[in-house]
């Protein structure tokens, strides 16, 4: 496995110098994201997210299985984030790197542990049958800020997903194929998003949003804040690095909230557009089994 290229001394020096002069290499302001794009696939539950040159594909799938013995009333919900050599030849299959572990931990904490999805609704027969929902995150291209892009893709894919409809009659469970009954959406409680700050300078006094790959390479610390648009914080992770002023962190959280609100609105808009595209002759409104939460 070839090693990841390190930035040259010139690059390190120059990027820092430029940052002290309020300049980023791509001309962005410090608190600006690169253009975020989202496309849904033809199938339900496929979200393709591009953030500048970073591109992440998330695919949701579901199957009926047996629940865990210690959680008979809960369904199973897993998020798989495996980085393949497509992301960078420095990654190898079945040998997780630090990047990969951190990415999967952050997304796990943000989406799964924050109770974004109602896992109890995935239970079909207590202790015997439940849905297992799985999201596969495929990083196609890595140009920095994987966490935010991947988290957005996961949330988008899950909200777009429809699982096959089921019914219980006389103790017999029937799972309908898509041809028989229109699939139903997951029961979704809130949409958390990640916002990652990167810190530069001796005391981490310079903070950047959405660092590109070359910027990430030379940061002295980073902090990922996950929250939803109501301002409820799911997790804050600052994993080592240079200490940062508490007041600065508070400021970061405030900016993160405005970004999350933007993400939220953007996703809602895209979902609505997609629903319109799929809505053939207005049949969807009648068939929809969604309940207002």
């Amino acid at each position, binding site marked *: 496995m070839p090693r990841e290229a*390190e930035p*040259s001394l*010139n690059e*390190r020096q120059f*990027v820092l110098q430029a940052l002290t*002069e309020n300049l980023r290499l791509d001309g962005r302001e410090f608190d600006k994201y690169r253009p975020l794009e989202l496309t849904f696939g033809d199938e339900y539950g496929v979200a393709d997210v591009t953030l500048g040159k970073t591109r992440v594909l998330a695919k949701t799938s579901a199957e009926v299985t047996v629940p865990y013995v210690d959680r008979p009333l809960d369904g199973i919900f897993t998020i798989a984030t495996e980085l393949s050599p497509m992301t960078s030849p420095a990654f190898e299959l079945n040998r997780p790197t630090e990047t990969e572990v951190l990415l999967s931990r952050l997304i796990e904490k943000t989406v799964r542990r924050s109770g974004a999805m109602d896992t109890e609704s995935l239970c079909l027969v207590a202790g015997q049958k439940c849905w297992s929902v799985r999201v596969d995150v495929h990083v196609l291209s890595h140009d920095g800020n994987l966490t935010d892009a991947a988290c957005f893709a996961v949330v988008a894919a899950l909200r777009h997903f429809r699982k096959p409809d089921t019914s219980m009659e006389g103790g017999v469970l029937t799972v309908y194929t898509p041809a028989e009954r229109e699939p139903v959406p997951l029961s979704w409680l809130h949409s958390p998003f990640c916002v990652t700050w990167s810190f530069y300078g001796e005391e981490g006094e310079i903070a950047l949003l959405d660092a590109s790959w070359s910027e990430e390479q030379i940061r002295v610390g980073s902090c990922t804040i996950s929250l939803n648009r109501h301002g409820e914080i799911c997790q804050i992770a600052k994993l080592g690095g240079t200490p940062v002023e508490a007041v600065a962190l508070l400021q970061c959280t405030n900016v993160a909230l405005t970004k999350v609100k933007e993400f939220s609105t953007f996703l809602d808009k895209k979902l609505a557009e997609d629903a319109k595209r799929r809505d053939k002759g207005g049949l969807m409104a009648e068939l929809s089994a969604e309940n207002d939460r």
Partner: protein
Amino acid sequence: MTTESLLVLPGDEIDPSLIPTHKKNPLRLGPGLRHVPPNHILPTVAGQLVADHRKTSLYVEYNGGRYIPSVSDLVIGQVTRSAADLYYVNLNPYTPNASLPHLAFEGATKKTRPQLAPGALVYARISLANRHMDPELECVSATTGKAEGLGPLTGGMIFDISLGLARRLLMARSREAGGIAVLELLGAEGLAFETAVGRNGKVWVGSENTKTVVLVGRALKETDEKGLDVEQQKKLVQKLIKQMR
């Protein structure tokens, strides 16, 4: 110029009438072609077949892919480490290092050789490239003993560009033959900067002014990614200059 062009894919038959012939000069095959004995010439990449009847040469013009070292190319490398009498220099991420002897600098002796730390950049020429060996570099001309612009690059910033753009920037008449005028235009706007173009898809830009370097880098990247022609490059340069002021 007596050139003709045609799209070729790997393994395509080349129409014999396109192959230039000359009474005395042998045919010279450029990149993207291979000779299969006894008398087949086959393309190995997808691109435009260019035949130059005046030079009796034939090659395939294409862009993209990974840089493959070839002798006398000018490249920008990054020092990974120093050994007893040579530096290991990386030309391209994930590829084996090239070697640059400590004494391959202008006027270098054991005592006066430049000291390069890991991560330093050098502008060098490829002195040996062979598929069975790692490439070797030099920062001094073997014939004149002069550096001729090669050597360590201090300060400044390095930008990644496509191999095609690097080739065009290195053309003797880059504006006319390569359709690339962005550096010229930026210079005409009064920006003071210097550049070094590596055939391995890297451009080093140096200037007293940080803003200038950022601007030149952005102009190059945008020209490369969006495939701008000379007119569009003019507009881009004007837009960027305006933004800076």
